[in-house]
C-alpha cells in the first residue's frame, strides 16, 4: 500500500443556491480543487451524494458529473451512505490510490437540497432512518437525536444550555469562515428561545438545509511534490464502521459505537492518540451529535462531552478546537458534501491557510462524518508533512 496525499481542495458557495443546478454546484468546487494543483488529468473520480433522486429526481450522477466536469469517459462512481457519503467517497479514492490502481483521483461530495420544500427535504433525509420501523411511526431526524439527547441528559446531567453552547461555539467559528451559510454569532439565549422542533432540540440545535459541494484531489505521497508547491498533507489514517440504522436496536442510544470503532482504526493506522490531535471537524448535524462524537473519538471522557463547548475545551484556543469551519451548524450541511468539506477544512488547517480561524502549528487533524443516527461512520486523520 502506498502513502496517499491530499494535493488540492475546492469548496465553493454554500447556501440556498436557487439559481444553480446540482451539476454546476459540483463542477465549481471540482474545478477549484483541480486548480489548486498542477495535475493535467484525472485517473478516476468518486462522488458522494445521499439522495439526488429524492432531492432533484436525478440519479446516475457518476456519469453526469464526469461529463459536465469535461471528463467524459472518466471512470467515475457515486457513493451513498446517507450523510456519510462524502467521507466514504474519499475512502474509496484513498484505497484506489493506495493500492496502486490509480495515481490521480478526485473525491468529491455534492447535495442540492433546496429544490424541494421543507417537507420534501424532511422526507428525503428521513430515508436514512428505518423506513418501516422508525419513520412509519412518525419519528423525524430531530426527534431521533432528541431521544439520544434525553438519554445523555438523564445519564450524565447534560443540559439544554450545554447543547446551546455547542451551537454558540460553532457559530463563533463560522463567523470567521466567509464560506459559511450562516457566518454570524448567536447567543445562548437565542438558541434556548428559538422554536422547539423536537424536545429538547430547538431549531438552533439543528444544522440547516444547504446546497453545496466540496472536492479534493488525491495522489501518491511520493508524487505529491510534483503536483503542488503547497505544504504536503498525508492521509495518515482511515477508519470506517457501521451500526444499526434503527436507533432503538442499540444498547445505549447516546453512545456512537460506529464512530468509536472507526476512530480506533484510524488512530491505530496513524499511530497517534486523541491527545495528539490539533483540530477536528466532526458531524454536528445536531448540537447533541457533537457532544456524543467527541466522546466516541476519545477527545473527552465518556459522559463528559456536555460541558466541553461551555468550558472552551473545543473552542478555538482551547485544548482541541472542534469544527473550526463552523461545523455543519454554521457552515451548512449539504449532506453528501459534508464529509469532503471536513477534509477540505482540515487540509487548509494543516497548510496554515485558515486565516482568523487558524489553529497555530496544526500537525494532526481529524474528520468524522456519519450517516443517520450514526449507522455509518468514517474517520480520517490527516498529517502535515
Amino acid at each position: 500500500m502506498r502513502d496517499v496525499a491530499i494535493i488540492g481542495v475546492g469548496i465553493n458557495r454554500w447556501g440556498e443556491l436557487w439559481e444553480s443546478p446540482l451539476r454546476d454546484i459540483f463542477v465549481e468546487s471540482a474545478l477549484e480543487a483541480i486548480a489548486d494543483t498542477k495535475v493535467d488529468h484525472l485517473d478516476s473520480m468518486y462522488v458522494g451524494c445521499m439522495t439526488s433522486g429524492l432531492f432533484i429526481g436525478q440519479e446516475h450522477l457518476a456519469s453526469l458529473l464526469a461529463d459536465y466536469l469535461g471528463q467524459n469517459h472518466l471512470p467515475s462512481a457515486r457513493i451513498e451512505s446517507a450523510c456519510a457519503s462524502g467521507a466514504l467517497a474519499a475512502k474509496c479514492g484513498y484505497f484506489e490510490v493506495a493500492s496502486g490502481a490509480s495515481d490521480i483521483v478526485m473525491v468529491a461530495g455534492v447535495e442540492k437540497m433546496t429544490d424541494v420544500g421543507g417537507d420534501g427535504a424532511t422526507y428525503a433525509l428521513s430515508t436514512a432512518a428505518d423506513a418501516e420501523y422508525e419513520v412509519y411511526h412518525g419519528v423525524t431526524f430531530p426527534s431521533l437525536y432528541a431521544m439520544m439527547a434525553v438519554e445523555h441528559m438523564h445519564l450524565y446531567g447534560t443540559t439544554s444550555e450545554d447543547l446551546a453552547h455547542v451551537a454558540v461555539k460553532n457559530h463563533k467559528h463560522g463567523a470567521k469562515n466567509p464560506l459559511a451559510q450562516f457566518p454570524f454569532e448567536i447567543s445562548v439565549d437565542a438558541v434556548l428561545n428559538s422554536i422547539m422542533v423536537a424536545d429538547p432540540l430547538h431549531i438552533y440545535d439543528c444544522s440547516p438545509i444547504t446546497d453545496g459541494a466540496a472536492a479534493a484531489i488525491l495522489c501518491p505521497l511520493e508524487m505529491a511534490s510534483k503536483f503542488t508547491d503547497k505544504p504536503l498533507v498525508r492521509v495518515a489514517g482511515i477508519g470506517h464502521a457501521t451500526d444499526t440504522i434503527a436507533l432503538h436496536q442499540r444498547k445505549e442510544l447516546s453512545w456512537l459505537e460506529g464512530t468509536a470503532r472507526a476512530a480506533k482504526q484510524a488512530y491505530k493506522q496513524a499511530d497517534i492518540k486523541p491527545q495528539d490531535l490539533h483540530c477536528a471537524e466532526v458531524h454536528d448535524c445536531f448540537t447533541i451529535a457533537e457532544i456524543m462524537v467527541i466522546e466516541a473519538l476519545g477527545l473527552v471522557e465518556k459522559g463528559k462531552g456536555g460541558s466541553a463547548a461551555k468550558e472552551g475545551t473545543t473552542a478555538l484556543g482551547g485544548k482541541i478546537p472542534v469544527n473550526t469551519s463552523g461545523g455543519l451548524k454554521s457552515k451548512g450541511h449539504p449532506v453528501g458534501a459534508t464529509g469532503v468539506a471536513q477534509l477540505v477544512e482540515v487540509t487548509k488547517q494543516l497548510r496554515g491557510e485558515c486565516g482568523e480561524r487558524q489553529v497555530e502549528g496544526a500537525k494532526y487533524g481529524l474528520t468524522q462524518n456519519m450517516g443517520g443516527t450514526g449507522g455509518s461512520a468514517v474517520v480520517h486523520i490527516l498529517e502535515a508533512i
Partner: protein
Amino acid sequence: MSTSARYTREIPQRYRLEAAKCKGCSKLFFPPRLICDECGGKEFEPHRLSDKGKVVSYSVVRIGPSQFVEQVPYIVSVVELEDGVRLTCQVADAKPEELEIGAPVTIEFRKIGEEGDAGIIHYGYKAVLDRFK
C-alpha cells in the same frame, strides 16, 4: 407512504408484535430476520412479544412530516419490552410532562395515520402510559 403490498407484509409485526426467536440461542428479533447475529443460526420460531415495557427515551415532535402534520405535537419513544426487545413508537393519550425514562407502558393496537386521497389507513402499535390503565 406505502403501497398496499408493502403495508401488508409488515402486518404480523405491526398488528401482532410478531418477532422471531433463534432456535440456536433464543435471541429475539423484531422484525424477524433470516440469520442470527449472535450464533449464526438460520432457524427461527415465531414469538409474540410481551405488550408490557418501559420508556427508554422519548421526544415530542413539534414539527412533523406531512403524513403526521395533523397530529403535532405528538410523543415518540423508544420502548423496551419485557422480552428485552426495543422498538420505536408513539406514546398515545399522554402529555409531554407525564413522560419519564423508565415509565411503564403497555403496547396497544392503534391507528397510525392515513395515506390521503383514497389510500389505506395505517395501523400499528403505540404505547400507553400504565398510570392511565
